[in-house]
């Protein structure tokens, strides 16, 4: 049975990755699962300089989901390379570094700093974060800006470049095409939906940051739809995510058109789940008599 997939040049032993920001730097989960079971580990989003993030409260539970406003807290690329990479290099699972910046220059510099670091196998570029130069609108919501930032990053790295799309747009297929045309080797989707919650006793937003990103099972239908639409629109492989809780959900994304999937919020509910999903997909294929995972990709488009 073949579970191997290739995402923009990165070979993975199976299609199961972790979603950035939900798996720390990998080591936090070591005691809960065999990290070598995973197709790839995607670490918390990094920036050139360490970032402190938003004040608490940062997380709020919602119906079948959660809002987070972590504010991209991270230890910065330098500390990541010196403190976290050594552990990650002991694994035989590829490491994908998620990164961001608050200007095109910062993105480019981060990419070039990460390029060529041993133990980093691919980059995932988070374009859902605010653009300092453009009044803090997200890079990933304006096609022109997306084109500019992705093209700039593309010039600075030879690593497989996955662009992670924001779902908070009118036309996700258009944004996908723009990212592809600008040099993305693969696309991942979806990032969180922007949401908020209000505490009616205090009459104020529950998150200190007011707005946050909605994730978890609640958003799965939106995510599956976007993967389905983007699959029709581009040629590059897709990494599907958004509310994946078990192997069935992962298979659903693959049938929608994803070559690989990422497990996010589910890691919080069950820290062993990513490994269970990798095994569960194999069990599903066994049951259904499918020899190669690639036969499932986009299967829902056949009708």
């Amino acid at each position, binding site marked *: 049975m073949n579970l191997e997939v290739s995402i923009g040049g990165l070979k993975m032993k199976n299609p199961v990755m972790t979603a950035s920001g*939900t*798996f720390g730097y990998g080591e936090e989960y070591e005691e809960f699962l065999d990290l070598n079971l995973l197709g790839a580990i995607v670490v*918390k989003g990094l920036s050139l300089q360490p970032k402190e*993030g938003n004040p608490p*409260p*940062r997380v709020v539970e919602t119906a079948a989901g959660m809002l987070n406003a972590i504010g991209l807290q991270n230890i910065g690329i330098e500390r990541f390379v010196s403190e976290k990479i050594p552990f990650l290099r002991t694994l035989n699972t590829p490491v994908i570094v998620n990164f961001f910046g608050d200007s095109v220059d910062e993105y480019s510099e981060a990419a070039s700093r990460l390029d060529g670091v041993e133990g980093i196998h691919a980059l995932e570029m988070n374009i859902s974060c605010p653009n300092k130069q453009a009044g803090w609108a997200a890079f990933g919501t304006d096609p022109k800006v997306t084109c500019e930032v992705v093209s700039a990053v593309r010039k600075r790295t030879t690593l497989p470049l996955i662009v992670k799309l924001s779902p908070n747009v009118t036309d996700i297929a258009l944004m996908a095409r723009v990212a592809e045309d600008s040099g993305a080797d693969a696309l991942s989707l979806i990032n969180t939906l922007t949401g908020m919650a209000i505490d009616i006793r205090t009459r104020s937003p529950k998150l200190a940051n007011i707005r946050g990103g909605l994730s978890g099972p*609640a958003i799965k239908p939106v995510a599956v739809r976007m993967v389905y639409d983007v699959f029709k629109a581009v040629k590059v492989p897709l990494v599907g995510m958004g509310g994946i809780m078990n192997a069935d959900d992962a298979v659903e994304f693959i049938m929608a058109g994803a070559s690989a999937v990422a497990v996010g919020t589910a*890691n919080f509910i069950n*820290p*062993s789940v990513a490994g269970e999903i990798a095994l569960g997909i194999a069990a599903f294929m066994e049951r259904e008599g499918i020899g190669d995972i690639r036969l499932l990709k986009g299967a829902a488009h056949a009708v």
Partner: protein
Amino acid sequence: MSRAFRAEIRENLPLNRNHKLLTLAPLDPMSEPQPGQFYMVEVHEGFDPLLKRAFSLFRRTPQGMQLMYRLQGRGTAILGNMRPGSVINMLGPLGRGYPLPAAGETPIIIAGGIGIASVFSLIETVPARAHVIYGARTRDDLFMLNELKEISKGLSVCTDDGTDGQQANVLQMLDQVLGAHPQELADAVVYACGPRPMLRALSVMTKAKDIKAYLSLEEHMACGIGACLGCVVRAKDTGTAAEDKDRQGTYQRVCKEGPVFDADGIVWE
């Protein structure tokens, strides 16, 4: 050994109208917990509510462990309806518990309301050594008074409405305890768990009196294991003191660097 395990509910005993005591028998190997550590407990059947809930280790029993909880919202309501025989998924023990008092030190252990759940096992760990101060709204919200009397050096009880102990708050009680035992003042270590305003006031008071204090904090949590960065409070961590410019502290994770923090390092925002 992974800290993910399943446990079977043995008893889910009502203590009063809105507090219960849960007795659990682990079905998988479980690490030995320290006082002040906590567990994440699953409370759903479907995906709503989604996240696990945090509860302190109340006490270790021969069969397993106990959690004491207050019926607060949706998750605890569901937990409250669970019956013996049900199996739940848990994570733990998590976080850093209370640093135990050194030989010469006198522990003063303070609980506000359900905060007793966090400090009870600490009191057990230093039998007959701790001055315990236990405050609650009303008499009915005070639990385990007999047990507490037995295992502590002295128990001072207060309630907001005066229905049991003194009509006072725990800060006033701490003042009294310190006044009554001046010789111990120098070696006192305060441990406390309770509502945030109480902890904040305690940190001001202990700082003013130059008494060492460890406080157990709460923040909303998603993962409980340090991965999501959701549960931060601003505090100074001895480990990262170098980055600690201007004594501003950095964001520390309640679930990993905490829940117990040195009162001196907490930056109340």
